């Protein structure tokens, strides 16, 4: 049975080299990094190396990296760490990941004010809007680097520069962009940056928050004073070692991975446009992640397409309400101004390192018939 995984924005398979790097830290070097004996020191050394590796990839210093359980915790820590227990104003975008949006809602409940900036039809935030939204009370600007659904890459350097001019910390969620676009926290004026391991062929359950030296944030998890007191809890040493290995592989393979992904992505998009009518690309035509192809197919519903593709062994995701637990259509696609009935027909293909030309050709072979079949059933077709 054919099995083609095109949902790499959801998660990735752990690279075999990563698994190998992690293995000794389960069985031999299993020590607690806080222990003073040799077992503990081995673990502590491994953590230090991992921290250095990840810091290097961002142009940061090792001491600026705080390990967390993943992107969601990093986002929570960045926002709540700055705002919790204080009144103040946050500027963010309307297309952030729920880890940001739900945290903002929570902080609003505690008395903070939040500005949710609109995006244009390609999903871009206007840096001018950030500037105009700043008030005397603004304590944090948080705008994601690249969007998880549509892959649009925000002008974070410009946004960061504006925030810096006003002396306001700038956080960006780089969970989707890390490993796929160049990131330099100095050049890009970033004060905090969220990372996740499992989106870059590392293990699940581990991530990091970069926090610029000098920026004081409060912990959201209290305990034994790990991670400079900012994130208590025995470090996930094997996971962190795997994360660091995944980062070093991503850096090593950056150019070849990017070229490969762009080629497959464009082959997929061009192939779909050549073979299917009434299809539109969601997101920015050029300012987008190399591995993201999100398209909407008029007159059909995404979950039905997803199921047909799954029957053919192809794994994708959709912005349709019908596939989400909340039954709400994608807030990202709605924010682009796409009518709800068209949002339901959106399919996200996110490619990975291991995908091949042959797999994309197979998708292009089976997709037109699926869309045609569903359009033949649909009362909206031709309206």
């Amino acid at each position, binding site marked *: 049975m054919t099995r083609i995984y095109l949902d790499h924005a959801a998660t990735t398979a752990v690279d075999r080299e990563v698994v190998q790097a992690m293995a000794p830290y389960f069985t031999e070097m299993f020590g607690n990094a806080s222990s003073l004996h040799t077992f503990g020191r081995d673990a502590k050394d491994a953590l230090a190396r991992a921290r250095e590796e990840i810091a290097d990839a961002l142009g940061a210093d090792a001491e600026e990296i705080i390990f967390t359980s993943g992107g969601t915790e990093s986002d929570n820590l960045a926002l709540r760490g700055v705002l919790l227990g204080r009144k103040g104003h946050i500027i963010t975008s309307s297309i952030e990941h729920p880890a940001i949006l739900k945290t903002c809602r929570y902080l609003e409940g505690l008395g903070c004010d939040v500005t949710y900036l609109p995006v244009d039809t390609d999903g871009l935030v206007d840096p001018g809007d950030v500037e105009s939204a700043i008030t005397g009370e603004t304590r944090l600007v948080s705008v994601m680097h690249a969007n998880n659904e549509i892959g649009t890459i925000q002008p974070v350097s410009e946004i960061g520069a504006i925030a810096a001019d006003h002396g306001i910390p700038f956080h960006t969620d780089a969970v989707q962009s890390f490993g796929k676009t160049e990131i330099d926290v100095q050049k890009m004026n970033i004060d905090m940056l969220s990372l996740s391991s499992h989106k870059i062929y590392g293990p699940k359950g581990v991530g990091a928050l970069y926090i610029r030296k000098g920026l004081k944030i409060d912990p959201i998890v209290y305990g034994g004073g790990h991670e400079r007191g900012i994130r208590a809890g025995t470090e996930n040493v094997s996971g962190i070692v795997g994360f660091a290995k995944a980062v070093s592989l991503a850096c090593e393979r950056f150019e070849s991975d990017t070229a490969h992904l762009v080629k497959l992505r464009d082959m997929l998009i061009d192939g779909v446009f050549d073979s299917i009518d009434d299809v539109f690309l969601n997101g920015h035509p050029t300012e987008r992640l190399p591995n993201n192809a999100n398209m909407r197919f008029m*007159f*059909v*519903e995404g*979950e*039905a397409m997803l*199921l*047909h593709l799954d*029957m053919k062994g192809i794994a994708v995701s959709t912005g*349709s*309400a*019908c*596939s989400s*637990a909340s*039954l709400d*259509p994608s807030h990202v696609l709605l924010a682009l101004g796409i*009518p*709800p*009935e068209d949002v*339901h027909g959106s399919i996200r293909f996110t490619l990975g390192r291991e995908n091949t030309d042959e797999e994309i050709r197979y998708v292009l072979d089976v997709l037109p018939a699926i869309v045609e079949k569903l359009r*033949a*059933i*649909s*009362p*909206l077709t031709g309206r």
Partner: protein
Amino acid sequence: MEYSEKVMDHFMNPRNVGEIPDPDGTGEFGNPVCGDVTHVYIKVKDDRITDIKFKTFGCGAAIATGSMITELAVGKTLDEALAITRDDVADALGGLPPVKLHCSNLAADALYAAIRDYQAKNKDS
């Protein structure tokens, strides 16, 4: 989304898809904005549904319920057809995931609308 085998069968191979060129009654239910809309077309003779077809824009469950309602309703008298409930459709499909019971189980309502359309057009006869 966990669908029963029966749902997947009706989704992959929907029965009685399409429109009836000269229907005696047509009904639609749902809203494309919510992601699901079903149209039902019927032919009626001697108070009995002799032919029925459907079209659905929607998810797997919405398509499967459209297909199933055509099988349940064909050959039934109008009163019998009006007695088919959403639960009957779900049961005939071997159940639907709980989140789908409300939003995607539209076919029975589309059938009622088609029958009412027929009845409205044939009030005097």
